[in-house]
């Protein structure tokens, strides 16, 4: 539970495994696992007893190589994936006293629609590609109980202009948009119900540099204006350096280093963090 003022979210002992497990990896994982999987039964330990705290208005960066479990954290938090064990608390949900993984699926849907917003790396996961951009944004509002078309339309139009989608194209389907535009529609959608926490999964990966800069500017601006707490997953240290206040370094499903972003990037302690920072172009 959350008992500290100013804390937006707390994750305790989050684990997620893929596979049946066996006698060997059920015991002492430290010595039996090869990186994050068991060489005997092939079970992958994607997240291993992970705990973290996110504070109000903070951007918490999560870096790590591909397969280190970064996205799995967000997938669990957004209920796209059920955790194997662990709990999470959100200060805006029942005062942070109830583990969000233990509530009913209706409650989970409500948390997803009202308290969390997620921007997926791949826009096809976060958007209905054949529905208009306006409808995509209205979807979350409809799910939160709104039944007024003009109010939802007005909100969608204002959010879309905020993320620089031309008014002419708002009624078009995102399948006809460029990658950067799709990503900006996703951000607008995530913001539509004013969630206190935003989950960002590799938002700029695959976008060209000028579009990346625009998306990053937008996120920075939203964070400054609305004071939303963000959990930002990226393997791009440039993005982390620009946006994150604090940074966690993940390796094989665990956090190996954490601290202020500048500190982690300038003076990395863990051998993997050092390698990561040194391989920055």
């Amino acid at each position, binding site marked *: 539970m959350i008992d500290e003022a100013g804390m937006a979210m707390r994750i305790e002992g989050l684990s997620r495994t893929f596979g049946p497990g066996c006698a060997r990896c059920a015991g002492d994982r430290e010595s039996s696992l090869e990186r994050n999987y068991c060489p005997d039964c092939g079970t992958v330990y994607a997240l291993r007893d992970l705990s973290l705290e996110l504070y109000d208005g903070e951007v918490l960066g999560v870096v790590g190589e591909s397969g280190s479990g970064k996205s799995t954290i967000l997938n669990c938090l957004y209920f796209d994936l059920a955790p194997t064990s662990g709990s999470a608390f959100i200060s805006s949900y029942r005062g942070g006293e109830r583990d969000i993984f233990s509530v009913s699926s209706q409650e989970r849907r409500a948390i997803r629609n009202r308290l969390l917003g997620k921007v997926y790396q791949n826009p096809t996961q976060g958007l209905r590609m054949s529905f208009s951009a306006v409808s995509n944004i209205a979807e979350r509002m409809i799910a939160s109980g709104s039944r007024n*078309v003009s109010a939802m339309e007005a909100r969608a139009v204002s959010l879309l202009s905020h993320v620089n989608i031309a008014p002419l194209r708002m009624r078009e389907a995102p399948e006809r948009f460029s990658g950067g535009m799709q990503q900006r529609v996703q951000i607008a959608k995530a913001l539509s119900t004013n969630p206190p926490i935003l989950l960002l999964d590799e938002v700029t990966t695959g976008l060209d540099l000028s579009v990346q800069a625009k998306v990053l500017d937008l996120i920075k601006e939203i964070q400054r204006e609305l004071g939303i707490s963000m959990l930002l997953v990226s393997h791009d240290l440039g993005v982390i350096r620009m946006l994150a206040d604090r940074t966690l370094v993940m390796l094989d499903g665990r956090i190996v280093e954490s601290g202020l972003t500048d500190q982690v990037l300038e003076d990395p302690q863990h051998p993997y963090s050092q390698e990561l920072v040194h391989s920055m172009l």
Partner: protein
Amino acid sequence: MKGRGLYNFAFFDEGSKREIRRAILKAIAIPGYQVPFASREMPIARGWGTGGLQITLSIIGRGDVLKVIDQGSDESVNAVSIKRLVACTTGVETTEETARASIVQSRHRIPEERLRPGQVLVLQVPIPEPLRFVEPSEYATKRLHAEKEYSGAYLALFEEIIRYGRVSTGADHPVMVNGRYVMAPSPIPRFDNPKLDMPEALILLGAGREKKIYAVPPYTRVASLDFEDHPFAVETLEGRRCRICGSEGVYMDEIVDESARSRSWQCNDTAWCAARARASRAPGGNASGGCV
């Protein structure tokens, strides 16, 4: 008749009828809920009314009077074939008069004449899942129903308003049944949706290909989905008058005469139209008497 004796009464074996009746009873007990059932192979192709036909064959008894219509017409090929199949295997009386029928099987329309207590309306359904358009997975839609999560149905209507400025469902406008389940009313025009609300007759819906049966029991609240600022509205029929019987305010077909470059309107419900036409031809005569 030729079919009698070759087949069991009403074509099906008794076990099949019982199984389908069980599904119907469950459907009545949970208004608007799609009950899966073991849809049989029928002597007509799936998608041609096998769901409705299986319901009709399961509930029909020797004392019943059957009417079958297809898009309002008693005389379309499909309606006649179904009617003949049931009549041949049961020997029940058939009729075109809505008021005389105890079972009315219909495709895409609810008769104009208000159904009475004791009558059963059987509707043929192509796609029973109202959320199919927004969620292709049956596994997912079952969960959405269980959780009463219907934003997808509203989203589909919202998208129409955004694209076309109004709700443009030509048919099959989704309804909320008894405040619990969102239901596809089968492709009836919006004009017929209000007839589903607090009906006096029992309404059974069958989807043979999709293997689902659902129901609106008598006196059940059925509300068409809409938005606060876009309330549900039926098709406008203003200024349309039937060229045969002179009816107004009923659902009309548009008749285009290309050689005369003109168009006119005609009642979609043929039994309604014929009765009105007879009444106007013979003043003082009984509007609902006799066959056409």
